């Protein structure tokens, strides 16, 4: 039908060619698209803000859980040290003289070593916390 040959075709083609959108069609469409674009940008900003808040919350939760772990580790170390002391005190009278001699000779060093270990646990934990790479959740 690209080359209409009859009178009817010519007539119909002339008739239908007048059928078109209103003159302000393009302007109305572009105005609607601008409005859509603004809504789009607002939604994107709101989404980004929501994601940032979620990230901050997650980081705080992670830091809090790390601190809890550190506290638990410190308490564990203290408990182990106390158990060791209690074991030595309980078993002390039953130990042979040689062992008692050695322990009285090295006792202060062992106690000092234990103290250093107990103090070192939170210090090492804090150092690890500070030197850790920034948390990336996204």
């Amino acid at each position, binding site marked *: 039908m690209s080359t209409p040959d009859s009178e009817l*075709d010519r007539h*119909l083609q002339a008739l239908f*060619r007048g059928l078109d959108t209103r003159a302000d*069609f393009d302007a109305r469409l*572009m105005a609607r*698209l601008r409005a859509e674009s603004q809504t789009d940008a607002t939604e994107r900003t709101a989404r980004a803000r929501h994601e940032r808040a979620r990230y901050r919350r997650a980081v705080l939760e992670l830091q809090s859980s790390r601190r809890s772990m550190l506290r638990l580790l410190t308490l564990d170390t203290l408990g182990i040290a106390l158990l060791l002391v209690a074991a030595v005190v309980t078993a002390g009278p039953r130990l042979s003289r040689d062992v008692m001699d050695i322990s009285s000779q090295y006792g202060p060093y062992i106690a000092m070593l234990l103290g250093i270990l107990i103090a070192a646990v939170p210090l090492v934990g804090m150092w690890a916390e500070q030197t850790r790479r920034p948390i990336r959740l996204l």
Partner: protein
Amino acid sequence: MLTDASLMELVRAERRDEAIALLLPAFRRKVFALAYSFLRDREAAEDVTQEVFIKIWRALPGFDARASMSTWIYTIARNASLSALRARRPQSSLSDPEVMAAVEAIDPAPSPDVIVYMEAQSHEEVATMLAMPVGTVKTLLHRARARLSAAAGKMSTSS
């Protein structure tokens, strides 16, 4: 020269408005003709054409070039026209399922003659636009011409 690649470059550069401004003169009348061929109502066809271009604007970043841009646009236009056609049908209540079934059974066949006469497209192009075989387009066009010819004959004898 408007090509799919040049349009996609604009989309990638987040210049969708410019892409639409290029698509509009090339496809506005075609989309309008396609919508009119389904709806046979100028106002409704214009509303659908607006919706189609807004849908295109929204979906352009996701266009994967599996089909050509024109085929993609015609698909959106056809679906939007069919949705508008369905929305225009009378809403029957659940108490009259027979009416509901009858309404659903109405064939929303488009009129290819509108596109042919509006846009002087070839049968093959109209077949692509309406997603129907060329033979069907020819048959529908033949019937429409016979109908129009009869109507024109009636008009000339009555005058």
